Structure formats: C-alpha cells, structure tokens
C-alpha cells in the first residue's frame, strides 16, 4: 500500500518535473548575449555588403560596418557562439544602405541590456559609431532618439 506521505511526495515530484520543462528555462546570459550579437552582426554584414563597391564617404562607412562585423564575430566566437549563424546578407546595394544602417543601429541599441562588462562597453561604441554612419547616410537625421527599438 502506498502511504499518504509517498503520494504527496510523488505528486510534488511530478509538479517539480513539470515545472522544469525546456520551454520554461530562462535563456542563459551568455546565450542571450550571443543571440543579440548575432542580430547585430547580420545587420552590419548587410550594410557592409550594400557599400562594398562604394567610394568616398559611403565607402568609408562600408569599411566601418565591415570592421564592426569583424569585431562582433570575434566577440561571439569568444563566448562560444558561431558567427556563421548570423543571417547572410541577400542581394543588397547602395539603395538599401540607409535602411540597413538604421536597422544596425536599432540592433545595437536593443542588444545593450544583454551585454555586460567589456561587451557592454563594446556595445556602447557600436551604438555611437553606427549612429554616426546612419546620420551621414541620411537614415536618421531629424530624429531626437535614433535607434529606438522598433
């Protein structure tokens, strides 16, 4: 015969196990940082791809986006993530640069809460750099709060 105490223990264990399902597990800080940086990386790759053949100021902005992408890929790899998991830019071209610059800035702003320590410091620099680029491309001028997450 199963005692009352054993039944209660069994029921408690069942409830505990049900509460430990994969869907209920909060994302680890490292996984959250990697996911946020993959989004940033994809956005910067798209901008760099748009301006790959550009010259002058636009060419410099493309080079800066490529450098930020390299920096992000290194940070992702350092945390054990896979930079290749970032979505590859498809198509692209100078006409899309303004939109992609705005998306990159939004990604950098949105990533900040997931980043701590040296990564937060890097993130602040990415926001400042990409905002300058977006402004010069005419993507954000006139907005007092550029990069507000959509």
């Amino acid at each position, binding site marked *: 015969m199963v005692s009352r105490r054993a039944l209660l223990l069994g029921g408690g264990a069942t409830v505990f196990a049900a509460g430990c399902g994969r869907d209920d597990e909060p994302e680890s800080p490292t996984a959250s940082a990697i996911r946020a940086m993959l989004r940033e990386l994809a956005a910067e790759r798209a901008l760099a791809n748009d301006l790959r053949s550009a010259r002058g100021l636009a060419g410099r902005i493309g080079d800066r986006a490529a450098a930020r992408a390299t920096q992000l890929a290194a940070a992702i790899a350092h945390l054990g993530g896979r930079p290749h998991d970032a979505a590859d830019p498809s198509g692209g071209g100078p006409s899309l640069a303004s939109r992609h610059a705005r998306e990159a800035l939004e990604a950098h702003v949105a990533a*900040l809460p997931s980043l701590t320590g040296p990564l937060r410091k890097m*993130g602040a620099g990415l*926001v400042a750099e990409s*905002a300058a*680029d977006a402004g010069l491309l005419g993507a954000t001028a006139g907005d007092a*709060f550029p990069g*507000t997450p959509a």
Partner: protein
Amino acid sequence: MRRRELLAAGAAALLVRPAAATGATLDHDGDVIKPLIAREEGAEFAYRGAVPAGAPDLGAHARDHAAALRTEFQALGRGTTPITIDQLDAPARRLAEAGTPAKRLAAAIALEADLVAAYRAAVVALSEPGILSTAATILASHAEQHALLAHLAGRDPFRV
C-alpha cells in the same frame, strides 16, 4: 508606437516593478542620469540662437532628451530642479559665448563630442533596461549630431 508612448510605457513599467528591484540598482541608475538631465538643459540653453546653419534644431533635441530623462528620473520617485544659466557646464558655456558662426560650429562639435563621451560612460553604468534604452538612443543622437556637424565643418566626421 510613438516615442512618447514608449517613454510612458517605460515609466509605467518602473512604477509596477517588484519591490526587490527598486533598491540600490535603481538608485544608482538615478544617480547616473541626474547629471545628464543638467547636461541636456545646458545644451538647450547653449543652442538658443546658436544652431549652426545646415544642422537640425539641436536645441529642440536637447529639450526632448532632457524631458525623456526627467520622465525616467521621476518614475524612480526622484526630482531635480532645472539648472539656471549660471550653472552651464564648460562646453555648453563655450558654445553660448561663441561670437562667430565658425566659433559656434567648432564649439558645437566640441559639445557634442563631450556629450558622446558622457553617454558612453552612462550606458556602461546603467542597469534598468528602459533607462538604458533611453540613454542609448540619446547617445546615438549625439553621435549622429557630432558626425553631421564635423562633416559640415569639413572635418573628418569619424574622429571624436
């Protein structure tokens, strides 16, 4: 969603935050943004009648930034009195006192560079996501303004 609605939602989120999260961390965040409110008020003073030709209305931007930060600050249960003209920080005072268009442009570039540095430091120090997001978008605004003003002046826009 409009910026004002975002700010209101952020402030509301702060008000309903569990008591455990309203301790030292939020006090610290308030301490971080309090001087930034004064900086934005100083910038608004300095840009009155001194916005370089070809630039957006930077005084209005500074006023919007101060209002956004003040909303966050009040949501923390804190308040601060607006600064007076006698309390301008040094870069804002240099802009306010610049006598020629060229000097105004140079002073505005210096002011924006100084604000970029201040917000970069703040973004590293903040914890509450809503306040962090507001500060980050203001950092973006000043970085953009610095680049545009430097470009107007014929300088390298990427050198801060």
